[in-house]
Structures are given as C-alpha cells and as structure tokens.
C-alpha cells in the first residue's frame, strides 16, 4: 500500500502548502472532488472482492478522513490568518477627535434651574403652581391688590403700560405675579379661554405663582424683565408665625446651609398687613456674595399677611379666612446663590455665559437628591 502512503504524503503536503482558501479548495477538489485522486480510489472499491474491499476500503476511508480533517484545520487557520490581516489593515487613528456629546454642550438656564429648585422646595411643603398672563389689567395688578388709585405705591412700580384699547381699558405688563393670586382667590373667576391660566379656588389655598414680571428699570441689579415666585397660603388659622417658619425653611433649603441667619423686619406693601421683609446675612466683601457669613444683610423676600381688603376684593370673608403671601425675585436668588455679577447678563444669550452658569440637563433638582 505504498501508493496509498505516497498519496497521503503528497495530499497532506499540498494541504499544508496551500497559502489561501482558493489554493486549499483546489487541493480539496484534486483529492476529494468527483475526479479527485481519493475519490478515484474509492471508485475502485466496487470492483474488488469483499475481502479486498474490507481492508482496502478501511484504508482509503481512513485516508479520506485524514485529508478532510487536514483540509478543515488548514481552512480554519487560513480564515483566521485572513481575518487578522484584514483587521490589521483596518487600523484607525484613535487619537482623532470625537464629535462633541450633545449632553455636554446643552445647558439649562440658571433662572430655570432656580425655578425648578424653588418648585421642588415648595412642592414638598404642599404648594401647587398657578400661572397667569403677562399682559394684565390694572384691576388685577393694582386695584384689587389694594393699591388706591393715584397712590404713590403705584408709582414705585415703574409700570409698563399699553395705549388704551378700543374699550378704553389701559392694559399693562404685570409688575409682580400677584394678579395670579387674585385669579386664584376669586372663586367666581370664570375659567378663562386658556386652560393654563389659574382658575378660582375656594380656600384653603396653598399656591406658588412663578413667572415673568416687568418694571421700567435697568442696571446691574435690575432688568426691565425679571422673574418672580410668589406664594399664597389661605386657611382659617394661618398667622405670621407660619410665614416666618415657611421662609426660614425655604431659605435654609434653598441655600443648603444649616447656619443661615435671617432677619425678619417690618415693611409696607399695600396688599399685606402686617407686612415684612426678610434679609439674609451675608458677606459681600471681595466682590462676591457669601451667604451665611459676614455682617451685612441682603433683602431676599417681601411678605406679609394678606390684607383684609384684598381678601374682600376677591370675595373671601377676612373674618373667616386669613393667610400670608410672599414674593421672591428669582433672578436675584439665583445671583445670590450662584454669584453672577450682573443680572443683565441673564438675558444677553452669550453662549460663553450660558456654558459657564448653565446646568446639565440631568441636574434636575429634587428633594431626594438635594437641590444642587
């Protein structure tokens, strides 16, 4: 059977020599193809005697298996080698720059962030959110809030007015979000055309009203448009002590400081009686405001017990119901907490400023994780 051995040596040699899959396929066809050398040997078995066939058959089939196995191994090896060669040829320069991730460039404006912080705090205290229009009537912005006609307190609001309309009514840009309090307290207030505008409620009431407000003023600490959040609590037995506690809570939570010192002092607003302002102790030396340090005071909120006339003007009996209201400047609060030097920059849309003072999309304040 030296022929068989020679064939085996020759075929396995050819398998080992095949340099690529095509050459290997040629070897396979030459050996195992229809006219291949081993196939030809197998074809001779039919003419053999049973005994001959038994021995020769076993030998030829063993050869066939051996060649098949060698072919398979060689094919796997060649495939791997080809893959390695291809991958090596497809090497990239991984130091090339990436496309900037959107999440890194997008920003939340600090005023929105502070609004969300305030909402988180007051939602946790049981307040819901009421909204109203920026273009308001004199009645809602002033008269119902106990600003007497022609009273100097009106002048202090530096109001933007529109020309009288066809009905002779002079609309204005709201100077505070207090008209929303009026809309909320007036339980007969028919739901307006737009469903987002606060409708009247019956007491007890516990709301905050955030939004844009307008006064004719422009310098580093005033802008003709600014943002306010006002709060209103009406119930049977709400007194000034509740107001003081609420503001203390709010200030500690907002500034996230255990040691904020506040000062609660009398003031005057037409729509509250008694009226108060709260200051927070701070240090402004060195050009930046540090809350919770120093010996200066920064005014932070105007507030008081809702004036009985205001309750009456909204159809609420002041002998049965009473409560408090307060109002913050959101932009000012943001400035105190995050340290922007000039409020006018808040509305200048400088992309560098937005990138610096803005917040990540994922930094949504919530009471569980803390505000900032």
């Amino acid at each position: 059977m030296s022929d068989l051995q020679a064939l085996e040596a020759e075929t396995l040699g050819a398998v080992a020599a095949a340099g690529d899959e095509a050459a290997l396929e040629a070897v396979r066809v030459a050996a195992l193809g229809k006219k291949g050398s081993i196939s030809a040997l197998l074809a001779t078995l039919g003419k053999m005697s049973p005994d001959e066939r038994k021995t020769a058959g076993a030998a030829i089939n063993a050869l066939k298996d051996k060649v098949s196995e060698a072919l398979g191994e060689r094919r796997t090896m060649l495939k791997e080698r080809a893959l390695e060669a291809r991958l090596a040829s497809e090497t990239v320069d991984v130091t090339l720059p990436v496309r900037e991730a959107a999440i890194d460039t997008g920003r939340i404006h600090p005023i929105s962030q502070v609004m969300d912080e305030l909402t988180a705090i007051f939602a946790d205290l049981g307040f819901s959110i009421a909204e109203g229009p920026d273009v308001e009537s004199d009645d809602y912005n002033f008269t119902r809030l106990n600003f007497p006609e022609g009273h100097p307190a009106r002048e202090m609001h530096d109001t933007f007015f529109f020309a009288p309309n066809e009905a002779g009514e002079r609309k204005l840009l709201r100077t505070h979000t207090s008209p929303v309090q009026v809309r909320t307290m007036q339980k007969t207030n028919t739901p307006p055309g737009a469903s987002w505008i606060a409708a009247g409620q019956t007491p007890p009431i516990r709301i905050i009203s955030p939004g844009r407000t307008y006064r004719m003023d422009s310098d580093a600490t005033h802008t003709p448009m600014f943002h306010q959040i006002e709060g209103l609590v009406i119930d049977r037995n709400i007194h000034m002590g509740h107001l003081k506690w609420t503001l203390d809570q709010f200030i500690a939570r907002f500034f996230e400081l255990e040691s904020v010192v506040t000062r609660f002092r009398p003031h005057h607003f037409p729509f509250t009686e008694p009226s108060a302002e709260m200051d927070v102790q701070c240090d402004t030396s060195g050009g930046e405001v540090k809350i919770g340090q120093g010996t200066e005071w920064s005014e932070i909120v105007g507030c008081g017990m809702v004036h009985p006339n205001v309750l009456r003007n909204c159809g609420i009996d002041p002998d049965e119901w009473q409560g408090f209201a307060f109002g913050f400047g959101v932009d000012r609060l943001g400035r105190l907490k995050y340290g922007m030097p000039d409020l006018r920059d808040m509305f200048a849309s400088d992309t560098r400023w937005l990138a610096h003072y803005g917040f990540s999309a994922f930094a949504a304040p919530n009471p569980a994780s803390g505000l900032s």
Partner: protein
Amino acid sequence: MKFTLSWLREHLDTQASVAEVVAAMTMAGLEVEHVDDPGKKLAAFTVARIIEAVQHPNADRLRVCQVDTVDGRKEIVCGAPNARAGLTTIYAPLGTFIPGSGITLEPRAVRGVISNGMLCSAAELQTAEESDGILELDGALAVGVPAAEALGLEAVIDFEVTPNRPDWLGVAGIARDLAAAGLGRLRTPAVAPTPGVFPCPIAILLTAPQACPAFAGRLIRGVRNGPSPTWLQQRLKAVGLRPINALVDVTNLITYDRARPLHVYDAATVTGGFIEARLGRDGESVAALDGKTYAVGAETCVIADGSGAIGLGGVMGGTSTGCSEATTEVFIESAWFDPIRTAQTGRDTGITSDAQYRFARGVDPESLVPGVELATRLILDLCGGEASDVVFAGSAPGRVAPIAFDPAYVRRLSGLDLTEDRIWSILGDLGFTREGGMVQAPSWRPDVDGKADLVEEVARIAGFDALPAEPLPEAPRAIGGVLTARQSRIRAARRALAAAGYQETITWSFTARSTAALFGGGEESLVLANPIAADLDCMRPSVLPGLIEAVGRNARRGFPDCALFEIGPVFAGDQPDDQRTAITAVLAPHGPRRWDGTDGDDLFDLKADLLALLDEVGAPTANLQVVQDGAPPWWRPGRHARLQLGPRAAIAAFGEIHPTTLKALDTPGPVYAFEIWLEAVPEPKKRAVKTRPALALSPLMPLTRDFAFVVAKATAAGDVIRAVLSADRVLIAGARVFDVYEGPGVDEGFKSVAVEVTVQPRDKTLTDAEIDAVSARIIAAAGKSAGAKLRA
C-alpha cells in the same frame, strides 16, 4: 430722608448710639439705606497745636513746624500760608488716608526734611469743597480731641420711608416710634401759641376745596431777614439742604422736623390783599422758585393773588412773591393739599420738592395751625417783628373712622402672645386712643383704617424677633404630584432640549415693533406706551427674532456656532388667552469641519431634534402631517414645513430662516429653527390604569423588500411613504426612504425614491406568492396616491 442724632435728641431723650438707633429704626420698619459717620471716616484725625513754625531751609513756601499732637511732639513740614505758632488745627499721623487728596501719608523727606505727619485743611477732610489753608480751630480745644467732634460733625442717617408713613417724613414722627420701641422718652417740645396783635391783612380764599380744603396763615411784620444762625444752617446742611435765608430756612426746618411743609410769601409783593387756592386756568403759567416756568392746567392746584397764579399749591412757590433778605413782611402758609392731585402735579411738572413729596403722601390734617405757630415762634426769635392773628379757611379732612378692635386678634393674626396691657400701651405710645372696644387712630396716621393695621402697629413695636416660627400645618397633597400636565411637559421639553445639545436662554418678552412686524406681529394693542428703549417697544409674536438676534450677537463676538432654545410666552393680542407658550430653538451650525465626512444637511438634524422633542412631550407624532407649502415670509421657501394634526391644527413649524429676514436682524446664516406652540399640542389622556397593554411579540421573522420608485420631482417623499404604508395595514410594519436620486437614468423633472419596506408576517410564514402579492399592492398604492412608477 436724612437726620442726625442731635436732631433726634431734641425729640427723644435717649443715650442710644447711632448703631442702636439704626437697629431700632430697622426693626420699626424704617429702612436705613446709609449712615454717613464722619467720626468713623475721620477717626485718625485729631486736634493739634503748632508750638513753633520756622522757614524751611530749602523751600521758600514751606514751614517746618513743631506740633503738639495726640502722639506727642512732632516735626511736620507744612505748605499752608497760615501755619503759625499757636494755631490749633487738625493733625493726621503717618499711615493715614487723606480723603480729600486720595493719598496715604508715608514718611518722606520734603526737600530734605522728614515730615512726621500732616496738618490738614477742610478740603483735605472733605468737609468743604475748597480751602485756603489748614483749619483754624478754637484754641480752647484740647490736643487729641477727635476731628469730627472738634468740627461739630455728626453721623447722618439716611433712610427710606414707605409711602404709608407720611409722619416718618419728620424727625418728630421717627422719635415717637423709637420711644414706643423703648429707645428713650419722647420730649417733642410743645408749641405755645403766639397771640396776634393785629388782624391779618391778607384774606384766604379757597375756591377749589377738592384740591385745597384747608389753609391757615398769618402775617408777621417788621421782620429782619438775613442768613440764619449757624445752628440752623448746620442742621440743614447736615441733611443736604442749602441754607437760603432765615425765613425760608425756618420753613425747611419745620418740613423736616414735623413733616409740616410751609411756604412764606413776601407779603409786600402779594397783590389784591388775598391769597387764593384754586385750579389753574388755561394759558396760565407759574415762574417757580427753581427758575423754571411751568404751564398749569385745569387740574393743577395753584396759589393766586390779584396778579394771577403765583405758585404751584403744595409743590413750589413762585419767584414773584418769594422771600428775600429785603423782606420785612412775611405771610406764612400752612395748608393741606390733596395727595393724589399733588402727586399728579409732581408727575406733570417733574418737580419732586420736599413739600410735594410730603403732601403727596398725606400731611397731618391737624398740623395746620401748630405749623403756623411753630413758624411764628422761630421767625420772631430769629427775625423779630410782630404777628397778626391766625387766619384759617376751610376744614381739613377728619381722622379715619374708629376701628372695632379685640386685642385677641393680635394673637390670631400674628401669633404673638402679648398681654392686653402691653397691646394697649403700645397703641397708646403711638398716639392711638381707646374708647371701649373702639380704637381711634391719630390724625397723622391716615394709613391705619382696619384691625389688621393695628396688629401691625403692635407687632412691629413688640418686635418681629418675637414672632414664633410655627410649622405650616400639614396639607393634603395631590397624589400625582403638584405639577399640571402642561407644567410637566415644559420641564420635560427643557431637559430634553438641553440633552440634545441646545443651550437654554431667556430673551426679552418685548422686541422692536418693526422686528415684531417681520414675524407677523407688531399690532397696535401690543405696543408699549412707555418702553424702556425704542427697540423694546412691542410684545413679541414669536421667540424667533430674540433667538436669531442672539445668534447674531454671538457671531459678532466670534462664536457663530449656536444651538439655543427658549420656552416662553408669545403674544397674539392683549387678552389673557392671546398669550401662548412657544418652545423655540435655533441652530446656527458653523462648527469645525469634520475629519470623518459626516456633515449632513443640518436641517434634518434639527428636524430629528424636533420630532424627538414632540415624542418627549407626548405629542401624537404618529398622526402628524408635514405640510410644506404656504411658508410665512420669515421662513426660507422650500426649506420649511408645518406639522399639523388636522387641516388647520398646526402644532409646530420648522425650517431655515429666510436670508432676507436674517439680513434685517443683522445675523449671518444659515439659521435653522423650529417652534412648537405648546397649547396646540393635545395633552395625552390621563389614564387611571398605569399598566401597559400586553406585549405581543411575533415569533415570525420580519423581512424587508426594497423598491425604487420614480416620482415627479415635486412629489414629497412623505407622500410616497404614506402611500406605501397604506397598501397593507396589517403586514407592513414600516417603510423608510434610504436613497433619493436625480440624474442620469432618471428622466428630467423626476426623481428616484428608494424605499425599504419591512413586512411582518402575523400568524404564519409568508409564501413567495403572498410576498409578491404584498409587493404588488405596494406598487399599486404608490402609483395611485403618489404617481410613482417602479424604476426600470
């Protein structure tokens, strides 16, 4: 308003320091704005005496002085011509900052002689504008006395008075509150009436009681007017008033002392023997004491005599009857002018005089005669003369009605736990009187007209420090959170846009009317009558101009690559429901060129962000129609579309801004933008059941088939897709365009749109014949609805 401690002490017996007074004022409701304390500012400066002054060896105009100072004997070089032996003056040691010259003293040789300090002039201490030499002080002053004390300088307290407290516009009123707050004993001197010795020759006529209901006056004859004495001049200067002459200074003093404005007339110049308070007449004008002439209208209260209008009532007197040093007969006016009318005259004329300021807030209606008497006393003291009888016309407004008051209301409204005695004593200290359960406010408190006002009085004097901090009672909470669906949407949209790479900004709600007009707005009802700037005079119809201009500003600074958004109000009219909330974004791509060649059409990046955002806010995106025709003029035609839910219900628009619009807003292009009108986007129905429908997953593999359709160039790919999807609502799971081609092989005026259709077998594997049938339906539908033919 300003006052000094010594002035306060005329009314308040107190040992309190400036700091204690300021603290008490703050807690009583008076907002102290500023304390100008020369004692602090001049702390380093003290009295010194020159013992010897000799000529400087190397300089003609300098002297070398031996000076006794608080630091001992010092050798000081001085250039003042009046530096002489024996002079008592002011010394500043080395290291002192000299406010008048802005330098800090250093040991430095002056022409070879070291000066160990400095002798100072009034200008160097900033107590005078200019001075000829160093200060010359009373030789009796001891060396080392602080300069402020030696110069009689006092701390000046500057504070803000809230409009409800006209009585605080006089030092006496402040003293009353401070006394009630426990800072001292009230001792405002009483004014003894001066009996008249002759009838007043000037009659008072009140013909406009709605403007001037009451008027008291008196003539004093034989006065010698001239500069007022030093104490009076100093007192006025300390609070920022300019001394004029004794008669005028007396009125200014009383204005600040008692919040009682007065006016003095040179009676010799008053014609007709009367003074009348009436309304102005057409064509009348008043030459006022400020040197300006004011035309008066029929709504202005004027003071007139036989010659016509001679003053603006309660606002400012006129030059024709003003008091000069030659005045020998003076007529004193102490009147009451209507606050609202006085405020209006102030606005009309632009005058904010001390008198106008007080009358506009409401002067004590019972102070007319006391004001005349106090002025009489001072004028007789300073200028001599004899007084006529007091004349009084009209009647001043009465006090506010008594208030029914139960002291228990203090606790109910404020939470303060005070005894009834304490409550009544506070009210008594403030001038309130009690009769049974009724409380009468004093005449100087027109603001107190209800029981809540009384609680405020009690609480602020008891001290807001004493208020308890009481936790807010628990309130039932909305189970689903406090935000409305709309508020939640706005928050989601904001965070989604920031996550998509847009920077949130906030721009003004107002814009230039011309800009508003470029975006379909600018109507009359939204134009401000008093804008803060001419280019911010109209409410915006859209956020787009604000954002586009922001892109322009950033580009001019060298940062043209912007992705900005704003969520805020837009205005279609002046009614509440004309205000809508717009979610608006702009994309101005000028970013760095990319090495991987992945720059596509940025319009479609923006469209992707818009669609993702609509999904995020729960808009029904599956039913959206993209309508391309009829672009408003600020959009670039052909690169703009509206997203509609029905034929009219547009919820959003996107596209590229028209180059002409960009040019008008001085902004480089391209700028892509979208806006979503939030209120137009239907809110998803709130479902009581939160479980989601069961997930039905097919075990059968989906298969895809590609179709190349040839359609007219104008046909929207969206129409082809819609037609394809309609071919089989059950089996076709999706269709998407993967290539659009125009050019060789496709006829002119046509394009090839290649669509990959995904077919999802439902309950059994599809046979080839069934797949072919679906394909045929797809081709038929595309042909029928979009005029598409299969590409050959």
